[in-house]
C-alpha cells in the first residue's frame, strides 16, 4: 500500500466525495413525469443515492490505499471488513447496469468473447464489464481478491472462477451445503472451519493481522443493519404500506453492499424513522391501496418503473417480497459470542440455500402477515435456484390459500428477453382475476 494512495483516498473520502455530492445537488435535473397513483416519494431516496454514488466514486481511489475485493451478495463479508478490504459487489453493479437498460450491450460483449447467451445475465454483464472496462459508475477498480459463496447459487462460483482465471488473482470460496432437510451439525462445523481457515489467506493478501475485537464489532453492526432493514420491511404490514417493494429493491443496496459498515447502519436508522413516521401519519406509497401483492424472485431491473406504475395505477401495491426479505431473514442467528458457528447458521440457511418446503412456509407466513391478496412470480432465466420449483410453489399457494397468481417469464438484467405485449396481457388478466376474486 502506498502512502500517497492512502492520503489521496483519505482526502477523497473526507473532503472530495462530500464536496462532489454537494455539487451534484446543485446540478439541475430533468423532472420525471410520475403517475398520480403514487404517494409522496421517500425523502431517504436522496440519501440513498448519495451513499451509493459515494461508494462507487471512492472505489476508484481504493487501489493502492486498500485491498479491493469483489464479493457475492451472500458471502460473509464481515470477515473481509475486519481486514479493511474495499468491497465491490458485481451483482449490484450488474443490477445497476440492468436498471439503466444497458444490460444487453454488456451481455453482447461477453457473448462475443464466447460466453453462452444461456448463462446468468448478471455474470455476462460483469464479464462484459471486465473485458471492456465499460461501466456507468465511472471506473471500477480491479480486484486483488475474489470472495464468493454458493449459498445463493453455484453460478457465482463458476462466474468467479472465470474472473480469477482472467485476472490471475486468488479466489476464496465459502462452500455452503444446501439445506435439503435441515442444517446438520456437521454442515455448521464445516462452514465454521472454512471461515477460520480463511484467516491466514486474508492476512497474507491484506498484510494485516486478524483482530477478533474488531471482527465482533463488525458482526454486531452487520446484525443491527440487517435487523433494522427487517424492521423497515415489517412496516409494510401497515395499511396503506408506507413504501412499495419497488422502493425496497433500491433501498436494499446498502444492506447488500455496505453491510457491516457504519454508513449502512446509519442509513437504515434514517429510513426506519421515515417509514415509521409515514405509518403514523397514514401516508401510503400509492394513493389508493386496494390490493396488496407479494413479489417472488429478483427484480426485473430494466422494468422496475414500468411494473411499479402498471400496478400502482390499478391500485395494487407490492408490500412484500421473498427477495428483499433475504437479507433480514436469518440475521437472528448471528451471535458475537459464537461468531463462527453463528455465521454458518446465518449464511447457510438463507432462502436460496434452503429447501422449497422452507420457502413455501416462509411465503405463507409473509402472505398472512402482510395481508396479501395476490402474487407475482418472476421466472427469471438467469437464476435457477430461484426459478426451479416456482411452478409448483405457485400451485401450492394458489390451491391452499386461494391466492391469485401470475408467473412472468423474463430476466433480471438482459432486456432482450422482455416481451412487453405478452407480459402486459398476462398482467392484465391477472389484475382482472384479482378484482373478480375480491368481489366474490
Amino acid at each position, binding site marked *: 500500500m502506498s502512502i500517497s494512495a492512502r492520503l489521496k483516498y483519505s482526502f477523497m473520502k473526507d473532503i472530495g466525495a462530500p464536496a462532489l455530492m454537494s455539487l451534484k445537488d446543485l446540478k439541475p435535473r430533468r423532472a420525471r413525469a410520475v403517475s398520480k397513483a403514487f404517494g409522496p416519494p421517500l425523502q431517504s431516496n436522496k440519501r440513498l443515492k448519495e451513499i451509493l454514488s459515494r461508494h462507487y466514486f471512492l472505489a476508484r481511489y481504493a487501489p493502492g490505499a486498500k485491498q479491493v475485493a469483489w464479493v457475492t451478495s451472500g458471502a460473509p463479508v464481515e470477515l473481509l471488513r475486519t481486514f479493511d478490504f474495499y468491497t465491490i459487489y458485481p451483482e449490484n453493479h450488474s443490477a445497476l447496469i440492468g436498471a439503466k437498460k444497458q444490460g444487453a450491450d454488456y451481455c453482447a460483449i461477453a457473448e462475443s*468473447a*464466447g*460466453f*453462452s447467451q*444461456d*448463462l*446468468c445475465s448478471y*455474470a455476462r454483464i460483469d464479464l462484459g464489464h471486465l473485458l471492456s472496462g465499460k461501466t456507468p459508475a465511472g471506473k471500477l477498480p480491479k480486484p486483488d481478491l475474489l470472495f464468493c459463496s*454458493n449459498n445463493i*447459487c*453455484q*453460478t457465482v*462460483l*463458476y*462466474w468467479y*472462477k*472465470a474472473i*480469477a*482465471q482472467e485476472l490471475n488473482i486468488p*479466489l*476464496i*470460496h465459502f*462452500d455452503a*451445503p*444446501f439445506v*435439503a*432437510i435441515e442444517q*446438520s451439525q*456437521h454442515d455448521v*462445523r*464445516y462452514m465454521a*472451519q*472454512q471461515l477460520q*481457515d480463511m484467516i491466514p489467506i486474508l492476512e497474507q493478501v491484506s498484510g494485516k493481522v486478524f483482530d477478533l475485537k474488531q471482527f465482533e464489532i463488525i458482526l454486531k453492526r452487520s446484525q443491527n443493519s440487517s435487523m433494522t432493514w427487517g424492521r423497515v420491511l415489517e412496516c409494510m404490514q401497515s395499511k396503506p404500506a408506507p413504501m412499495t417493494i419497488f422502493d425496497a429493491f433500491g433501498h436494499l443496496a446498502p444492506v447488500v453492499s455496505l453491510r457491516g459498515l457504519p454508513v449502512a447502519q446509519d442509513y437504515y436508522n434514517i429510513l426506519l424513522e421515515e417509514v415509521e413516521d409515514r405509518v403514523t401519519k397514514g401516508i401510503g406509497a400509492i394513493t389508493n391501496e386496494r390490493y396488496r401483492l407479494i413479489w417472488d424472485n429478483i427484480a426485473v431491473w430494466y422494468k422496475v418503473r414500468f411494473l411499479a406504475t402498471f400496478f400502482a395505477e390499478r391500485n395494487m401495491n407490492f408490500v412484500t417480497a421473498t427477495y428483499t426479505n433475504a437479507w433480514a431473514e436469518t440475521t437472528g442467528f448471528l451471535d458475537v459470542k459464537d461468531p463462527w458457528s453463528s455465521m454458518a447458521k446465518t449464511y447457510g440457511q438463507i432462502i436460496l440455500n434452503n*429447501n*422449497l*418446503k422452507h420457502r*413455501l412456509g416462509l411465503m405463507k407466513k409473509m402472505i398472512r402477515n402482510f395481508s396479501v391478496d395476490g402474487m407475482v412470480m418472476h*421466472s427469471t*432465466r438467469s437464476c*435457477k*435456484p430461484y*426459478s*426451479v*420449483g*416456482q*411452478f*409448483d*410453489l405457485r*400451485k*401450492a399457494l394458489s390451491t391452499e390459500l386461494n391466492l391469485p397468481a401470475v408467473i412472468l*417469464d423474463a430476466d433480471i438484467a438482459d432486456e432482450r428477453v422482455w416481451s412487453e405485449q405478452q407480459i402486459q396481457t398476462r398482467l392484465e388478466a391477472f389484475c382482472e382475476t384479482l378484482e373478480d376474486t375480491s368481489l366474490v
Partner: protein
Amino acid sequence: MIIPNRSEYLKQQARNGQKIMGVLPALYPRELLWAFDILPAEIWDPPGDILQANAHLQTTICPVVKQGLEFILKDPEIVTAGYLFPHTCDSLQNLATQVKDLIGISAPVYTFYNPKGAFRQATRNYYQDVLRELQTTLEQLHGPCDPEKLQTACQLGFKIDTRWNELQKAWMSDQLPVTNQEYFGLMRALEYMQPADYLELLDQVTVQDQTVIRNDTRLLVSGILPPDIETLSFLDELKVRIVADDLLAGSRRIPIVCMDPPYDPMEHLTDRFFMLPPCSTRANSLAERSHYLKTLIAKSDAQGVLFNIVKFCEPELFDHQFLVKSLKSAGLPLLNLETELQPGLSGQTKTRIEAFIEMLDDQVTA
C-alpha cells in the same frame, strides 16, 4: 461382448426382487448403495418425449433435469428403493426438493452433498460426515450396514476403477479393438449393472498385446454425456475414433490415478472422491481443467476436441469459454455440438462433423 439392454436388464433385476434406486447425475458413493444390496440405476437421458415435466419446469432448464423429472413422474415400477439426488448443480439441487417437498412422490427421496471448490482437510472431513449421514439414512429403511459388505463393495468398485484405467490406456494406445459405440456402451453399462456382472462384462473385452495399426482420425470428447448413438455410429462410419474422454458420465468419474486397494471403506470412498479428475460440477479451477485436458490430448494423441454441450448446462457452459480459448491458443482444432438429448442426427450436424474431420485429415496430410 454383448452389453445388456438397460431397460431389459433392470426389469429382470426387478423381477428377481432386486431393490433398485433411481440416481440422478452425477457423483455419489455407489459402493454404499451396493453394500445395502441396492442397485443404482442412473438417470441421465432416459428416452421419450418430455410431456409432464413441462408443467413443472421452465423451458430454459437443461434437458438432463427435465428428462430426469419426466422419468420420475412416470413412477416406473422398477424403482423400488426411491431416488438419490447427488448435489451436482443448481437445477438438480432444486429438483430434489421440488420432487420431495412440492410434487410429493411416494418413493423416498435422498440427497447427497458433494463439497465444492477448495479441497482442504475440512472438506475431506465434511465429505466423510456426509457419507456417514447417507449411511445412517439408508439404515433407517434398509437395516444396519454390514461392514463386510461395504468392504466387498469397495473392493468391487476398486476392481472396476482399476480395469477402467487399463482399458482407457489400451484405448488410447490402439490396443482395444472396439468401436466408439461399443466403448461408450461399455462405459455407460455401469450406470445400471450389478458390479459383479459389470466386471464380467469388462473381462470379455480383450486388450491386444500390440498396437493395432489404425489410420483413424483421433478425437477427444468433452462434456456431460457422450454423443448419442447415431453420432457415435456416424463417427465409426467416418473412421473417427474418440480416443479419450472428459465426460461427466465417463472418465470424470474414474479416479485420475490407480488407487491403493481399499483398507478402510470410508477412507477409501473419500480418497476416491478427491482423486477424480477436474470437473465443472466440483468447481475445480479453470487452469486445472485446461491442464488436465491438454495432458489427456497429448497422452491420447488426439487431433482435435469435440465439445458435446448439453443445452442450458451452466457448469459446463461457464468452463467451456475458457477451455475453448485455451485449447485454440494451443492450436487444437475444436468442434462444438449442442444437444437437447433428442435422438437423431440432423443433416446439418452431419455436415459440420464431416467438414471438421476433413479439416483434421487435411492437417495430417499437410
